[in-house]
């Protein structure tokens, strides 16, 4: 169950980390869902045509970053409303992917290719005797390790580099940055592109883990990634924990499906229900915390 949870966690975590970077720069990127979908589609198409997972994932990252760049140009340079633009990106991905898929492969539906390489797993060459520890540490696909590594990297970038400091001050105090002679827009743009990198890679993992592209393969995971940012108190470690909690909840609900016979369609609403509960609880807690702070 934990193995499953970690596998489900990785794409959400990586997309969430990307979203965290743009959130810290003061841009709530609600287009994560569309960026992930783009990453998933690109990853499958490129992996199938080149036979290389690495190339597929790289292409997905580039596609996510490119679409995020479009997002940043429209929202920052054209000055469009950032939420409406983010929705536009989601809609564009939803509309353009089936269109492109149909032009290339003659179908808007499932893309399954023969000889699709599978995501490698990290297995030990020797027997490791402690079962629970073994299950927790080994046997996952490489995306899981990558996601943990990226969590540490994001933490380092945000808190241990000058770039990270400036990025965070764009979100908290853009005027101070401007007074120092720097342009906040520049950092916002980089942060948005980085969120595209994260979401693209997250989407790639999602699809490569299955080895197929399904329509709406993300099914709300981009939104969950968005909420892990809030739930994780806008910190990389927090995003890691929040993403794991969601992944575990999903694993449990999938297991429960066999027992209580929940209809499949109802299960589709679960990520959204959990997300909205998490958001409301988070804001209620923060709200009462702020009030206490104020009265003190």
């Amino acid at each position, binding site marked *: 169950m934990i193995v499953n949870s970690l596998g489900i966690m990785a794409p959400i975590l990586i997309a969430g980390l990307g979203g965290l970077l743009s959130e810290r720069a003061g841009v709530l990127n609600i287009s994560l869902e569309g960026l992930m979908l783009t990453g998933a589609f690109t990853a499958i198409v490129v992996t199938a045509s080149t036979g290389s997972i690495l190339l597929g994932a790289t292409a997905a990252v580039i596609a996510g970053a490119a679409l995020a760049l479009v997002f940043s140009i429209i929202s920052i*340079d054209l000055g469009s409303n950032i939420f409406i633009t983010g929705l536009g990106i989601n809609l564009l991905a939803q509309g353009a992917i089936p269109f492109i898929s149909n032009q290339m492969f003659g179908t808007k539906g499932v893309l399954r290719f023969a000889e699709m390489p599978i995501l490698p797993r990290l297995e030990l060459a020797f027997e490791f005797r402690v079962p629970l520890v073994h299950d927790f540490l080994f046997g996952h696909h490489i995306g899981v390790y990558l996601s943990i590594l990226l969590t540490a990297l994001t933490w380092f970038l945000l808190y241990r580099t000058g770039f990270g400091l400036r990025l965070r001050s764009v979100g908290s105090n853009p005027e101070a940055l401007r007074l120092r002679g720097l342009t906040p827009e520049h950092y916002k743009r980089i942060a948005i592109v980085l969120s595209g990198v994260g979401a693209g890679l997250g989407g790639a993992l999602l699809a490569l883990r299955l080895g197929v592209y399904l329509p709406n393969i993300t099914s709300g995971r981009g*939104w969950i990634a968005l909420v892990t940012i809030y739930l994780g108190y806008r910190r990389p470690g927090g995003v890691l924990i929040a993403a794991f909690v969601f992944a575990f909840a999903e694993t449990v609900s999938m297991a429960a499906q066999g027992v209580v016979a929940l209809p499949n*369609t109802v299960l589709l*609403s679960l990520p*959204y*229900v959990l997300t909205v509960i998490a958001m409301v609880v988070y804001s209620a807690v923060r709200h009462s915390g702020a009030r206490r702070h104020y009265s003190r």
Partner: protein
Amino acid sequence: MSRGSPRGSFAGIAIALIAAVLVTVVMLVIGSRTPQAAIRAFFFGPFSNTYYLGNMINGFTVLVLTGLGAALAFRAGVFNLGGEGQVYIAAVVTAVTANAVTHASAPVGIALALTAGVLAAAMTAGLSGLFRFLWDTDELITSFLIASASIPIIDYMIVGPLNDPASNLLTTPRIPEALRLLRILPPSRLHIGIIAALAVAALAYFLLFHTVRGYEWRLTGLNIEFARYGGINTGMYILVPMAISGALHGLAGSFHVLGTHHAALVGFSAGLGWNGLAVALIGRSHPLGVLPAAMVFAYLQSGSRTAILHTEFTFELATIIQAVVFFIITAQHLPSIAPRFTRRIGARLGIRSNNGGES
């Protein structure tokens, strides 16, 4: 969090509409085996017979209501992104109510079914307003998430417990004949709901621009801090606009059942919420601006529907058009970029523009 109410600039609106038509034509040319016929069907199809014409006007009714719902929320500075779910919820509740009150007389039955649907939708949207009011939870995200959570559940109910066993379609049973709204332009589906939609638009205009509450409503949307400083109960102008926005989406959903289809079809509301937002943005969130915007959108929509015979991309087409409209419509720097751009082209062509002086 201050983000103001998004309102399209006039240059943005013009460019967005041109871009929408261009995208449509390009997609039809790429995606259709018979592009010429598809384009002809797209542009002239809606006027080719009373069936298409009536259905286009009926689509206009829906867009006016959802557009007004989105616009009224924008005017108060709140975002309702759950329109699609609210339309859907209202439709199911209306269908169930209409089938339950078969013994009531027609006016009572219609009133009951309509009220139930509208109330359900208003409460759904109002919930997001309440969260925002109580704990400052972002209503933009919660309204979307609540809708996304409810859509699969309603899908399940229509396919499962509420399904009509007599029909091959995935739909609720058809409502009693007596409760169906009068059709205006048979054989099309246009019904008298259009009169209600136009009345609601006029009412919204009057409320917003000719009453004190409307003034407070708009002031809260323009600058919530200023409004609070001026003694306006701004909490109310978060909660109430959300609920009213939901109610208008609900009215669209109820009309779908009582007038258009006489049953709630599975997935019928897909994209309706986004369309409403696009209409509100094109109409600059003005109740009367929503009317021409809804007309243009209804035309685009029914054009792509008649072109369906020539292409398989109606849904994708509509989605991409919405995306393009969203990108351009709220662009604030377009008016300043566009002249610069044309001047640069002009300079290249050796033409000097007279309206220099602006930088």
